């Protein structure tokens, strides 16, 4: 039980993610989470504004069910399968985060400096989350996939476009982490 309650090491988590991809292939589907955002747009009526959203969303209902399950899984994992142990970040990461003004790095899944109500009820806080979300949603569709569709499924299928996309993920991520975050915090 201790093994379940503690954070899982990478060599357990990684292969289990492969299992998710393989299960979806065996069920006749493909692993990709960002396409749900497109489906949500279509359900909300975006097909009136662009042909890009003219899809039969019912054929993607299975993926929305995966999302529903993922939410339930997140609940189960935090409520019943966790022991509130802090995240074992490297000491350099903790030092860097403290320099940026993050008080207790790793004590919670997400930093209260970005995700607490106190933080998002400021203009800066709400802007951070809205801009971040917008970039993820815009970028993932422009690139035709996200971490699950490109980094996991695409690379596993040896797709060159996915490798280019993943290189892009790192260009953006490195720019943000090394140059922009220090300007924001």
């Amino acid at each position, binding site marked *: 039980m201790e093994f379940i309650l503690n*954070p*899982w*090491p*990478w060599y357990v988590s990684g292969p289990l*993610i*492969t*299992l998710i991809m*393989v*299960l979806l292939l065996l*069920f*006749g*589907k*493909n692993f990709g*989470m*960002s396409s749900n955002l497109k489906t*949500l747009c279509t359900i909300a009526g975006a097909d009136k504004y662009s042909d890009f*959203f003219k899809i039969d969303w019912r054929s993607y209902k*299975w*993926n929305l069910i*995966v*999302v529903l*399950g993922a*939410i*339930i*899984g*997140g609940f189960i*994992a935090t409520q019943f399968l*966790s022991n509130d142990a802090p*995240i074992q*970040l490297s000491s350099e*990461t903790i030092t860097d*985060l403290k320099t940026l003004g993050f008080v207790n790095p790793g004590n919670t*899944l*997400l*930093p209260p400096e970005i*995700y607490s109500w106190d933080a998002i009820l400021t203009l800066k806080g709400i802007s951070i989350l809205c801009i*971040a*979300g*917008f*970039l*993820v949603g*815009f*970028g*993932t569709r422009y*690139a*035709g*996939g*996200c971490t699950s569709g490109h980094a*996991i499924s695409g690379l*596993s299928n040896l*797709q*060159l476009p996915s490798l*280019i*996309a993943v290189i*892009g*993920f790192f260009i*953006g*991520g490195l*720019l*943000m982490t090394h140059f922009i975050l220090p300007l924001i915090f």
Partner: protein
Amino acid sequence: MKFLKFLIVGILFGIILVKSEAVSWYRIFEMFKFQSFHMYGIIGSAVGLGILSIYIIKKTKIKNIEGTKIEIPTKDKGFVNYLLGGSIFGLGWALAGACPGPMYILVGTGVFSILLVIAAATLGTFVYGILKDKLPH
């Protein structure tokens, strides 16, 4: 009933990503700082085993539960859209500390401010759909 299996896959996915800490903003920061092997181990082992799995699927011609051949779509040719779109995604990923999968999962962990990120991501997808034909691909 036919959706139950997808619900179960989703639940497993949510549990795995929380327990791996891949849903944590801090782990994404640490990854982009190259200060821990953790995230590289997760993605690397998932891809390594994924390559082997897909090789076996193709080689053995295993059928899916619907009895048809497992089709893994190849990605469309392109360069600018993958590199530029990917970079835009990366900027958002490192700022929010969450990509689309974790965004949904985090709702279940009780961090409801993530709903704002999901709403903004849906808007971002909508704006891409509107501008699609004007963007370089």
